């Protein structure tokens, strides 16, 4: 059986309370995700602070598509397919830099404006103008038409047709807004470098994990549990180190995670940590509170800092933590290969100590050398192997299932509910098939 042009077969992989193993291990499904899901959804590209000046660029991928994000001469951020229309060479190779007024391909010196338009090519008289303008190459580097800048977060939709940015995100942008508002100047900057961690597992396992509140006390007993045990042996009166503040909540009780709540938005977006979270009890950093009150007033500052959301999943493949200013991207490379990039932000106008705290969290939790990371990495890869078993075919997401939940949105539920996972898999089936035609029977 082939899944290509077969939306019914794809939709049948997602049942109300379970999803089929082919989502994680099937080559054709992965290829169709790249062609359909990552084209139909609004996917995070990068942050405008990475390209502050005209001509600044940043190279990345959207699904499996190499792209370059660049600040054009009208000061808007553009996203181009990173592919020379001549022979197919990736025009830009550095992770970031400044290209000046135009891109120049290193192979034959074709050059392009920063909106992709063909500027010049050597020995142009060798082309008959009437013939050349009929070719695809005359149009230059392909520009992604649908790009949106939300408070410096750049998203794009590769497919020319589809859902609008507002429809896609609905109320979920409030997490990004809260992270930005945590800067006394209402501004974030990417800072401190990016941690890049390679996993031999499917990208959706990482997405699934972000709102899985029943694993920390089990999988992370070895790391967070040991940290708490070692800390308890410290002499009475020793000030609690920042690292212990960050580790300890990972092994909170089931009751804690149940109580903190999950908010489920539409289209696969949702977040853990509604009324409380593992980021709620960090020590104050001198000077920060004051600068927030000065910028926003007492009440508004309290409201911003009191919103301590844990993990916000933006479908399909990023997770944001407002209170600790991190953004993780789960980049799909193959059905069994995912690159996890963990980015950090400086709250402009806030004390350096906040960035230091953010970087410590990222290092302790998200680095290839992180003990917490090792715990998760191990179970993801065991799952990637285990799913090849023919003893069972389905992955279970039935916890606290309510038959009336489908179609409901913007609701808060028990913090251990797998409703948010079901929300993601329903969105998966939708964006996989939204633009897919059923093949006519032969």
């Amino acid at each position: 059986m082939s899944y290509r042009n077969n939306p019914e077969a794809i939709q049948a992989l997602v049942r109300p309370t379970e999803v089929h193993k082919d989502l994680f291990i099937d080559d054709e499904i992965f290829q169709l995700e790249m062609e359909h899901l990552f084209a139909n959804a609004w996917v995070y590209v990068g942050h405008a602070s990475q390209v502050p000046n005209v001509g600044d660029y940043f190279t990345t991928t959207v699904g499996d598509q190499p792209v370059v994000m660049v600040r054009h001469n009208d000061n808007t951020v553009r996203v181009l397919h990173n592919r020379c229309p001549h022979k197919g060479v990736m025009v830009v190779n550095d992770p970031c830099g400044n290209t000046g007024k135009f891109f120049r391909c290193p192979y034959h010196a074709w050059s392009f404006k920063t909106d992709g338009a063909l500027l010049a090519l050597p020995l142009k008289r060798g082309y008959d103008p009437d013939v050349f303008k009929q070719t695809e190459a005359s149009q230059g580097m392909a520009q992604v038409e649908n790009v949106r800048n939300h408070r410096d977060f750049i998203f794009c939709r590769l497919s020319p047709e589809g859902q609008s940015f507002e429809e896609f995100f609905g109320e979920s942008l409030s997490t990004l807004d809260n992270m930005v508002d945590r800067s006394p100047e209402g501004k974030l900057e990417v800072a401190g470098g990016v941690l890049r961690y390679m996993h031999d597992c499917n990208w959706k396992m990482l997405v699934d994990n972000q709102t899985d509140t029943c694993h920390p006390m089990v999988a992370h007993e070895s790391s967070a549990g040991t940290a708490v045990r070692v800390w308890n042996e410290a002499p009475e009166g020793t000030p609690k180190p920042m690292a212990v503040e960050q580790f300890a909540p990972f092994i909170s009780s089931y009751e804690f995670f149940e109580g903190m709540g999950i908010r489920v938005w539409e289209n696969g977006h949702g977040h853990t940590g509604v009324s409380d979270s593992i980021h709620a009890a960090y020590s104050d950093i001198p000077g920060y509170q004051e600068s927030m009150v000065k910028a926003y007033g007492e009440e508004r500052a309290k409201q911003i800092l009191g919103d301590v959301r844990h993990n916000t999943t933006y479908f399909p493949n990023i997770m944001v933590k407002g209170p600790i200013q991190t953004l993780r991207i789960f980049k799909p490379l193959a059905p069994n290969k995912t690159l996890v990039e963990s980015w950090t932000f400086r709250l402009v106008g806030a004390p350096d100590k906040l960035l230091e705290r953010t970087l410590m969290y990222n290092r302790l939790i998200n680095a290839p050398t992180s003990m917490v990371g090792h715990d998760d990495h191990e179970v993801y890869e065991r799952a990637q192997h285990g799913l090849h078993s023919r003893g069972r075919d389905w992955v279970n997401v039935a916890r606290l299932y309510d038959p009336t939940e489908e179609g409901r949105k913007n609701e808060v539920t028990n913090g251990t509910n797998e409703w948010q996972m079901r929300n993601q898999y329903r969105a998966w089936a939708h964006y996989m098939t939204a633009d897919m035609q059923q093949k006519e029977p032969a």
Partner: protein
Amino acid sequence: MSAITDQQLVDFVYAEARMLDEQQFEVWLELFTEDGYYWMPLAHGQTDPRLHASLLYEDKLLLRVRVERLAGQRTFSQQPKSRSHHLLARPEIETGHEWHAPDRGQYVVRTAFHYVETRQDQQTLFAGWSVHQLIAAEDGLRIKQKRVDLVNCDSAMRSIQLLM
């Protein structure tokens, strides 16, 4: 105490690597001063461990957590266990290093290495150099800071579970 000889510094570096490869982590941990740090930068030529990300920047408390975790019954990522092997080039005494001051009992030693970490069917080779900042204490040399620079520090990596 009497002056530390170059040979003692060199011997210390070899012995430290051997403790790691023999997984004598508890003994290894005691090589660090109470305010000692283990630093593995993320960026080539990194100077700031605080406001730039690192792979590791751990004080003795965090190193102790790491060491105890490796021995834990529920440390599933070490079932089965990883193994490591250091191949060291001859350690060099960094007499030109600003922190190197034998008259104050401070020594800096740089050692190029190849390091292999294995677990099950995976074997990964790393190359780099370590810089030990050592202090002469009453009962021998202690590590004030061990800095490990990987030649591919900014590459995407799989888990590195043991210590280089």
